[in-house]
């Protein structure tokens, strides 16, 4: 049960073996993806034909490496742009929300808080279609009444940003609120007492205290936006994000260039994830 309670050696070993098997299960898929990115073969499969960097570097035409695959490169840039927007917006709104729910008092606060949490329990697909519907309703109404076609409300990157922002904001709110709850408000009062206005007090004292959480929330938001698929699927226009591009090539049969890009993603997300961890938050949502 716990180390202080005597337990038969075989039971302890059995338990440790189970945990070991679990980690094998956890890492096997990633390991094969990474290793096969270096296989000198046209297919992401065994047998091992020897080591090659072709799937990273080859300019084509038979083998197109990652650095020369325009589709994947474009997807990567698109995803990064979207993720930056989502991270910025959701941390900004999440910070306001944290102050709203931790420091302000107003009628129906609990109800609004419950509503703010719901995006986490709405399936991503549903968020995607409802935002698709509503934006096209609004676009239709604007066109009907004003006669202006609003391009941003049709499937495309602005909608993708909004769709991802709609639920990632809840997470940013939770991360930042958790830190703000630990904030000693008398520090802010001391700043007010020393002549600062509330805005200045928040800017100079509270936000500085929140900085690790802001960084952590931004890292989590960036990661989740970058890899989002279910919500994005319905909102994406002609510029596909990386997961969408990869989905199509994986579904229709891929070359090991997908392994190469996956390996790059693993390294990148591990780096960003560690920023998130060391800013004091663990956990995320796809």
């Amino acid at each position, binding site marked *: 049960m716990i180390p202080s309670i005597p337990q038969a050696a075989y039971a302890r070993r059995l338990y440790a073996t189970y945990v070991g098997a679990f980690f094998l299960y956890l890492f096997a898929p990633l390991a094969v993806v990474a290793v096969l990115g270096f296989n000198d073969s046209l297919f992401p499969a065994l047998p091992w034909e020897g080591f090659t960097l072709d799937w990273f570097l080859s300019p084509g035409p038979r083998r197109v490496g990652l650095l020369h695959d325009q589709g994947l490169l474009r997807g990567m840039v698109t995803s990064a742009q979207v993720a930056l927007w989502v991270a910025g917006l959701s941390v900004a709104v999440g910070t306001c929300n944290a102050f709203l729910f931790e420091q302000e008092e107003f009628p129906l606060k609990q109800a609004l808080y419950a509503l703010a949490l719901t995006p986490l329990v709405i399936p991503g697909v549903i968020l995607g*279609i409802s935002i698709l519907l509503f934006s096209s309703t609004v676009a239709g109404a604007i066109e009907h009444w004003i006669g202006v076609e609003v391009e941003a409300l049709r499937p495309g990157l602005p909608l993708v940003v909004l769709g991802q922002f709609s639920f990632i904001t809840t997470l940013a709110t939770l991360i930042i609120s958790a830190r703000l709850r630990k904030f000693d408000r008398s520090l802010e009062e001391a700043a007010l007492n020393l002549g600062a206005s509330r805005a200045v007090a928040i800017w100079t004292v509270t936000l500085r205290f929140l900085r690790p959480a802001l960084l952590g929330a931004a890292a989590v938001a960036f990661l989740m936006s970058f890899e989002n698929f279910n919500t994005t699927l319905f909102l994406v226009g002609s510029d596909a994000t990386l*997961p969408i591009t990869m989905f199509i090539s994986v579904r229709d049969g*891929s070359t090991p260039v997908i392994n190469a890009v996956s390996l790059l993603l693993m390294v990148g997300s591990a780096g960003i994830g560690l920023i998130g961890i060391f800013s004091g938050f663990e956990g*995320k949502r796809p």
Partner: protein
Amino acid sequence: MSVRAQRLLGLAVFLTPALLWLLLLIVLPHVDLLLLSIRPKGGAGAVSPANYTRFFAEPIYWNTFARTAAYSILATFLTLLIAFPVAYYIAKVARGRAKGIMFLLCLLPFWVSELVRVYGWMILLRESGILSGLLVWTGLLPRPVEMLYNDLAILIGLVYTSMLFMVVPLVTVLDSLDDSLIEAAYDLGGTAPSILREIVIPHAMPGIAAGSIVVFMLTLGNYLTPALLGGKESLWFTEQIYNQFIIRFNWEQGSAFGFLLLILSSAIVWVGLRLTGQTLASAVQTR
């Protein structure tokens, strides 16, 4: 400016973004979803339950719906079953550095895109894949076998992809269980199974609820994993929604499907919270 006016200004500054976000991106879109779902295709203005009656009239629709729900429950249960001993090990058995490292190792695979994780399973399971090759090589199979594109493959992928959302709340809640409670129960004559049943699981209930709710919701609304691991005939309900929206361009029917999925998801979340005596806030915050 008076103190009161200043306070109201502060409230307004913080309240406005929250209201815009929730109203424009959550409330109104879902109202719109409901409104569109009760309109026949092309028939503006009229209200009709046709989209819902079609759902019940076509066995393929409600069969897929029921199948998705059943598999989601099964996947949630399996995830809990696999994750619990691991979470317990990390929280209660591992000590010091090993504990932190193991927890980090649990998180690591889930920072990578779900697509990469599913892709890994495709490489493992397909006919020319690692697992099949391994079994042939050891002589357990006479020739390679296709292990992809079936229900078991979908289940494996869903369980794998949900693991983190179970492990994290379980580790958090089990970490908060005081060792002395287990020792006290043991000192009073308890045995491992009875302590698990009467002390550990009741204590872990908030984490179990939080993890299960999130895993169920994610599984139910997953499109990527069933589509890639289940192939063309994955029969997952999100696929029906996708077909209606993107392929047939029947948004009205798609909305009805989406709304049904939303109701199912919300109902199970609500029942889960009720059964374990949790609130949404407490369930979400253990993450």
